[in-house]
């Protein structure tokens, strides 16, 4: 099925649902092709190839709402599916806030090429895929004789999404992505087998990270863990490496969602235009980055996207507001969830910042832990390195950090100059003062 046929199908679904009694309908038809390779011990370990379809429809009928997904997209089965879906919706309670977005939000979509499709996608051969995975493995194994296991990865993907709303939206989104990576385990005497990895995603094949660099990073990170131990509990400085920042930052943005606010489970309720972090934190939602992993011209509700400052020098400037909870709260919709999150970076590298730390930890990974979005309480397990007088002294693990997000982000004293670009969350390393650590 090509794009045109998918659009035709989506419009047919809209018509069928309306015929069955829906007042409004939103339909998505998705097609995705994936190839994945795992390579270890000089041979292909896993080869997975697939093509999949899915169709989802949201039904708005008599002020009631339901949503349905199926991967059986033959019209003869869809017809029954749609009739049952509409019939079932009648049993739900009324919800006057469930409406498609006002069509004014569909308008003024930017007309730029976000560069989300690699024209070379079809030209990547099966041999080339295996060759990349093999090269990553070879480069990795050449780096240390302490390696006891190495698995390398390659995958690529093409997706094509069609979106039709019965009140006047029609959009198509297509894209490619390529990923490669490696996971390495090393021997630490009879203590343990520390492991680490490097794994990166890009939109264009030519932008795949170099096997040498990935091998070097994965191996050095694993070797650095040899001799891990826990240190004394106490209050220390903390630098969170860019790669690891996602875990804690996600717990700040979750409570920025309208759903969280409306359900009274956000510690950020009522904090718009107030300081929720130190001056060092400025974060923008930017949907227009060329070849950005979160770039898009319209969001999941069909609304034209905009660049938005979310947090400006620590002041909360915008929530993530979708149409439904926006209506319940009486707020203008912004965007339901982030596109590309861009931090305003500092001027120094984490290596330079480390030199300034008297007593602290460089956190390279979080392990487990959680946070309470209602109160802001958090506690996470960490893996990293102990720093004293500006020098890395000792790899550490089996320690926790704890605190409250209401205070924690005010303790941010510096932002690194190293945004991680292999993600839609382009986060640099972050430096926090006076964090509660528990160990021995």
């Amino acid at each position, binding site marked *: 099925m090509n794009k045109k046929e998918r659009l035709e199908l989506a419009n047919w679904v809209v018509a069928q649902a309306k015929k069955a009694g829906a007042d409004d309908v939103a339909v998505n038809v998705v097609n995705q092709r994936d190839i994945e390779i795992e390579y270890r011990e000089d041979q*292909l*370990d*896993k*080869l*997975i*190839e*697939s093509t999949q379809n899915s169709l989802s429809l949201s039904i708005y009928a008599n002020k009631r*709402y*339901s*949503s*349905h*997904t*199926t*991967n*059986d997209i033959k019209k003869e*089965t869809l017809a029954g*599916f749609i009739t*049952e*879906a509409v*019939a*079932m919706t009648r*049993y*739900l*309670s*009324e*919800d006057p806030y469930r409406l498609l977005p006002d069509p004014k939000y569909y308008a003024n979509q930017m007309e730029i090429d976000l560069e989300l499709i690699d024209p070379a996608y079809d030209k990547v051969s*099966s041999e080339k895929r295996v060759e990349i995975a093999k090269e990553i493995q070879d480069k990795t194994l050449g780096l240390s004789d302490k390696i*006891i*296991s190495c698995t390398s990865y390659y995958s690529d993907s093409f997706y094509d999404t069609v979106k039709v709303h019965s009140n006047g939206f029609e959009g198509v989104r297509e894209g490619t992505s390529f990923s490669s990576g490696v996971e390495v*385990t090393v021997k630490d005497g009879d203590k*343990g*087998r*520390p*492991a680490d990895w490097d794994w990166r995603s890009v939109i264009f094949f030519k932008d795949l990270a170099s096997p040498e660099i990935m091998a070097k990073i994965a191996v050095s990170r694993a070797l650095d863990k040899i001799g*891990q131990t826990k240190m004394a*509990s*106490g*209050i220390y400085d903390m630098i969170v490496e860019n790669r690891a920042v996602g875990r804690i930052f996600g717990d700040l943005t979750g409570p920025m969602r309208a759903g969280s606010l409306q*359900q*009274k*489970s956000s510690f950020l309720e009522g904090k718009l235009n107030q300081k929720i972090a130190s001056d060092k934190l400025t974060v923008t939602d930017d949907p227009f980055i060329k070849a950005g992993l979160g770039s898009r011209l319209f969001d999941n509700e069909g609304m034209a996207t905009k660049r938005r400052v979310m947090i400006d020098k620590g002041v909360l400037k915008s929530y993530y507001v979708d149409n439904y909870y926006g209506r*319940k709260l009486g707020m203008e919709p912004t965007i339901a969830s982030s596109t590309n999150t861009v931090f305003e970076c500092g001027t120094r590298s984490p290596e330079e910042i480390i030199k300034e730390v008297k007593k602290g930890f460089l956190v390279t990974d979080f*392990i*487990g*832990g*959680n946070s*309470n979005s*209602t*109160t802001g*309480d958090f*506690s996470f*397990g960490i*893996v990293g390195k102990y720093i004293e007088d500006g020098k890395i002294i000792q790899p550490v*693990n*089996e320690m*926790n950090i*704890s605190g409250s997000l209401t205070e924690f982000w005010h303790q941010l004293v510096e932002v690194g100059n190293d945004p991680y670009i292999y993600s839609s969350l382009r986060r640099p390393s972050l430096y926090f003062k006076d964090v*509660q650590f*528990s160990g*021995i």
Partner: protein
Amino acid sequence: MIEMSRRKFIKTGAAGIALVSVPMFFKLNPLAAFAGPAGQQRNLKDYYAHFGVDEKTIRDVIAAALDKGGDYCDIFFQHRISNWIGLEDKAVNRAYSNVDFGVGIRVIEGEQTGYSFTEEITPGAMKLAAKTASNIAGQSKNAPPAELKFHQTPNYYPIETLWENVGIDQKIPHLERINDKTFALDRRIIKTRIMFEDESSYVLIATSEGRIVCDYRPMTTLSVVCIAEQNGKREDNYFGFGPRAGFEYFTPEILDFMAEEAVKRTVELFDAVKPEAGEMEVVLAAGNSGILLHEAIGHGMEADFNRKGVSIFADKINKSVAESFVSIVDDGTNPNWRGSINVDDEANDTEMTYLVKDGILKSYLHDRISSKYYNVMPTGNGRRQNFRYAPIPRMRNTYMLPGPHTKEEIIKSVKKGLYTETFTNGEVAIGAGDFSFYVKTGRMIEDGKLTRPVKDVNIIGNGPDVLSKIVMVADDLKLEEGGGYCGKDGQWCLVSDGLPTCKVSSITVGGINA
């Protein structure tokens, strides 16, 4: 046998099911073949009809998959129907449903896997997928696929009514009942969110060795989130059940109990404090604390990690890892428990597997590839998220058997420590062995007595180290009610766990430094 915390609820089960109901997704025509007592007769003919295949087609597809060589092939047909309804702001005003249908084809050569799937169950589409999966092979010669022989498996999840025959009109009153009860119980409750999910999964698995099995796998979760407010402060918590059971499981008593538990767990947080940071004695309450086993030892015992040499438990089989009163099992056979399976996803029988018996490390959890590699019998742990994935070793219900102590004795033995009651999530680094889990609620233990409530602390330790520090185990084994999902290699599986009250002599607790 084992005292299950839920048995008392199952016993009270009432069978009153309304006769007229609105079907909620989706009766594909062949499904009619399953009408009758819960469709659990598992008659092969019904499954052939359901997927529109016969023995000849399946054998042809297997032959196509092994055309280029390979040691083994299996075909996994699945039809999954799931429904979700939600109550928010005191009204059941949202419903989601999902239908998923397809077949996965796997070819194995040595330890190599070729995999493909198709969502179109036609001979043409299946042969194309078979050809794709066959690209992994090339070295070995294969025997022609054996004649298929039906393998009948026990039924560990009997239910009264198929979920797809339970209408949304029957489910809605359950949510409303819990909601009303929740608000009636405590004036501090300001919001609730209640979610009711059910799933029917039909699977048919055929192997090139000639085994063919079929299974109907029900699943449901019903959970309540409460937000409470007191003097301008807010707290939230939740409670839920998640068995492989039918609609009859949710009796009025269970529904009321859910409301009571959710409210209790939420409002007690207003008095909760954070413990002191650092190492201390920790007593794990019976039940939900089984997450300790899942993270500290379960994952490390999955045989793929050991075959690849990346687990901290590699090379430790038959060695002493814990006190002699510690026995830990992974079990697929517990009636109606969330992690139970009648047959694993590569057609092997399921069982109760000892990970640790009397303190000695006994067996890894195997899938087909690892059991061949180690030359042992499969343990029935080859599982997959759905037909889109190749199976890998996964846990089922992981729990510790009862020990010689009592809960009272254990709590009394602690001068200053933490008693952990409920958890939300955990994680483990397989190789280094560090694992952590997040304690949502608990209590301090001071001078042998339970005192102030505690909330939101992470606990972190090292698997083998913590196992060796389990110094007391009580006789009160309980399985957790909720159960959850376990994620590994991008695949999510239903699991559960359990524990008797037990004491770890020292483990690091996230908290506040004085």
